[in-house]
């Protein structure tokens, strides 16, 4: 059988030179990832993980591999400011580390934060296990792509017992360039036993651009560690952003995630949490608000693999304009994960006749001492609540905005930082029609 012609997306990247590391195992892993990507191409909607996200349009575009001028792109420092939150920050522009924009001089004791490019130059061996990983599932195209091309990102290690009170920030900026480019970042985050950290991850857009960004992150929490992870995705309007985060939690480790998705034309986020230690807990909260022609796809998968593990997740979707929101929330309780307690809720508002919501909560249970529940709804604003507000003299448009904002902000009420809560409120208010 003749091989069908490669779509432009695959063809352009198949011929692109791989970043040279000078490290034999890494060069080999990159080559293998690229070969696997080229052989399988982009998944179509028959692949279950991409059922509601068609990549046909993307596959017809071609992106240049990386931005050679990333180091000299002008970025307005005001763009990088976040609600008066000071503290260490690592800034990447089009996937490349920018020392001039970053703040690394006041790192708290116990924190080792550096760009992947530096970590690789200094001690590649310590990254070997993670960076040699293969991605074998049919929908793994972007992970393979990232594995082949990513040469920068963040490497963050927190020493055992270190309780870090200052939030750390990772900022990714997609900046306008001459051509449409594809950039990739790769993270490794590791919290030692009993460590505590707040990590804020931001995606921003500077100027008109339609780049593709991919991000692949491995987050490991050793026993008793606690991570507060906040994700604010405000990528540029025309850009595509495909992210995947793997959390691996040891005994009693806790992750509290708050994720807001606002930007991008195509925004896909795969969140996978493996609860491998007894009594580990994953608490995920998020909102996605596709508007215009935005397509947002959140794929959450939580694996309970040890005893007495807990997960609770709340995601809210608001689709307006011609926006389409996709949510998959899978809970898998493996054999032996007795005492697991898992709850997942996904509520969605459909605000316009052209918008669409596709949601798929899943339960896969292989143990019997288990409590697992999920719920999902798709509907519209409560007419009675709207009526009540109008009866109090609030005009209808404002009443609707108020109710929609209240709906979308609910997952963030558990966010500890008041400043961030207020910031998210402002983002939501600015987003929703006044």
């Amino acid at each position: 059988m003749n091989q069908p012609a490669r779509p432009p997306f695959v063809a352009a990247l198949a011929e692109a030179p791989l970043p040279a590391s000078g490290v034999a195992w890494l060069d080999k892993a990159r080559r293998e990832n690229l070969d696997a990507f080229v052989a399988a191409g982009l998944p179509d909607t028959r692949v279950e993980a991409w059922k509601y996200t068609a990549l046909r349009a993307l596959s017809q575009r071609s992106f240049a591999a990386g931005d050679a001028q990333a180091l000299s792109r002008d970025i307005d420092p005001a763009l990088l400011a976040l609600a008066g939150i000071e503290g260490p920050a690592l800034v990447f522009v089009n996937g490349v580390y920018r020392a001039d924009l970053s703040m690394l001089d006041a790192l708290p004791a116990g924190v080792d934060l550096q760009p992947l490019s530096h970590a690789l130059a200094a001690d590649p061996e310590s990254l070997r296990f993670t960076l040699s990983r293969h991605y074998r599932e049919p929908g793994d195209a972007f992970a393979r792509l990232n594995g082949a091309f990513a040469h920068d990102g963040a490497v963050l290690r927190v020493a055992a017992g270190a309780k870090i009170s200052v939030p750390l920030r990772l900022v990714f900026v997609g900046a306008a360039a001459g051509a449409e480019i594809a950039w990739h970042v790769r993270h490794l985050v590791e919290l030692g036993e009993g460590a505590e950290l707040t990590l804020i991850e931001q995606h921003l857009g500077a100027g008109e651009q339609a780049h593709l960004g991919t991000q692949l992150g491995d987050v490991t929490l050793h026993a008793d560690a606690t991570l507060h992870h906040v994700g604010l995705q405000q990528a540029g309007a025309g850009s595509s952003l495909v992210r995947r985060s793997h959390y691996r939690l040891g005994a009693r480790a806790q992750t509290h995630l708050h994720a807001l998705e606002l930007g991008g034309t195509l925004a896909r986020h795969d969140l996978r949490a493996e609860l491998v230690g007894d009594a580990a807990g994953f608490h995920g909260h998020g909102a996605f608000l596709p508007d215009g022609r935005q397509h947002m796809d959140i794929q959450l998968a939580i694996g309970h693999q040890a005893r007495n593990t807990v997960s609770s997740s709340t995601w809210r979707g608001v689709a307006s304009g011609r926006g389409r929101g996709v949510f998959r929330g899978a809970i898998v309780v493996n054999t032996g994960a007795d005492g697991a307690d898992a709850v997942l809720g996904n509520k969605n508002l459909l605000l316009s006749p052209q918008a669409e919501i596709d949601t798929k909560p899943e339960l896969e249970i292989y143990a019997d001492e288990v409590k697992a529940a999920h719920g999902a709804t798709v509907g519209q604003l409560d007419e009675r609540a709207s009526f009540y507000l109008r009866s109090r003299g609030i005009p209808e448009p404002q009443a609707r905005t108020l109710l929609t904002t209240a709906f979308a902000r609910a997952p963030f009420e558990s966010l500890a930082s008041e400043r961030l809560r207020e910031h998210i409120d402002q983002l939501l208010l600015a987003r929703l029609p006044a």
Partner: protein
Amino acid sequence: MTAESIETRADNTLLRDNAEVAEALGRNYAAGFVTEIESESLPPGLDEGIIRQLSAIKREPEWMTQWRLAAFRHWQTMPTPDWAKLKIDPIDYQAISYYSAPKAGPKSLDEVDPALLETYEKLGVPLHERAALAGVAVDAVFDSVSVGTTFRKKLAEAGVIFCSMSEAIREHPALVQKYLGSVVPQGDNYFAALNSAVFSDGSFVFVPEGVRCPMELSTYFRINAQNTGQFERTLIVCEDRAQVSYLEGCTAPRRDENQLHAAVVELVALEGADIKYSTVQNWYPGDENGVGGIYNFVTKRGDCRGADSKISWTQVETGSAVTWKYPSVVLRGDRSVGEFYSVALTHHFQQADTGTKMIHIGRDTKSKIVSKGISAGRSSNSYRGLVKVEKGAERARNYTQCDSLLIGKKCGAHTFPYMEVKNPTAIVEHEATTSKISDDQLFYCRSRGIGEEDAVSMIVDGFCKQVFRELPMEFAVEAKKLLEVSLEGAVG
């Protein structure tokens, strides 16, 4: 499982075009098979010759033969579906005999072989008594040929047609041609295509305009002979404001091989019509080591074609080694209503992947799904459902509730609901829970002197009540007993 029902319409036209070509090409062969009519069983294997023979044995008109052949040709181009959460050894479709009939061809109920009737007796379907006492007309399908139909006359007076599919093809060809394949097209899915090619018999019900069917209709299916798949095809049509309640029970004797069962059920509800379809499925589930048992691949779909129509599916699934079944409703008519009530119990090595699809197309359409899954032993039990609200389905409303109960540590209970909503005035709600029988409940029962097995059975019965309520009374009693029998040895 996606809502391919809509897209496959287009394929169907294609199939029809192909069928015409096939008709022209196939004509010269037709005569060659007439001599085969004497045979009671066709040899194992599947090709166009077998299908022509089958069609000839059943004295079908040429259009039916061509319809089957078109389905067969399409089936050959289709891949075996692999999306369900089922582990199945590859099926050798050439090792199956696609037709077997009882030796003596009975003309009326009195002529039916007493041994056959005895088998029904054991299954609790004494045709005469039960029919008379319960006022139920039974169209019993033994292997592939309908052997007895009762209460024909009474139904005929009301204008209701209730007969086997083979008779319907011969006696009511216009009706069959109009509706057959109109809900589940020949190429709808792999197993529906296979069924369309080789279906042996089944039931046909037609309730004319304004008629309420005077009694509940019932069919008892039974697989008997070894190495024969059973492929029934059921078609129920309710004209405007007509109403019918149909019961289907299935059972099979013990065999070591995995037998194949691929049925298709089509329901058509025109304006204001109301169809209630209840199933108690107790095919042989295989033994406690997972040896043998029926492979049950069923396509059931109802079409609420007219405004204000209603289709309600109720199923109690306790049998089969493998169940692959998604009774669905296409809510085309404005204000039409779809319902799905299900209890699926799996034990030992049984696997069930079952659920429903509710496709909201018309305005103000409503659907309700209540699914109760019980897994024990080393079984796997999945709910898989789709609720789809199309753009024009103003104010569509769905409520789904899926609960799973786990008995034992080695079984699996899974829930895969899909919700696709394209209309901002629709409200879709889904809720699911999974838990085991609580120790508190068990302890309470035991402290009242109830044995552990009885206590489990009571709790399971309570868990399923919401669904059992929807079953006709005698079925509800049977379903409750079936659960008890099926759960034997699940605790302790």
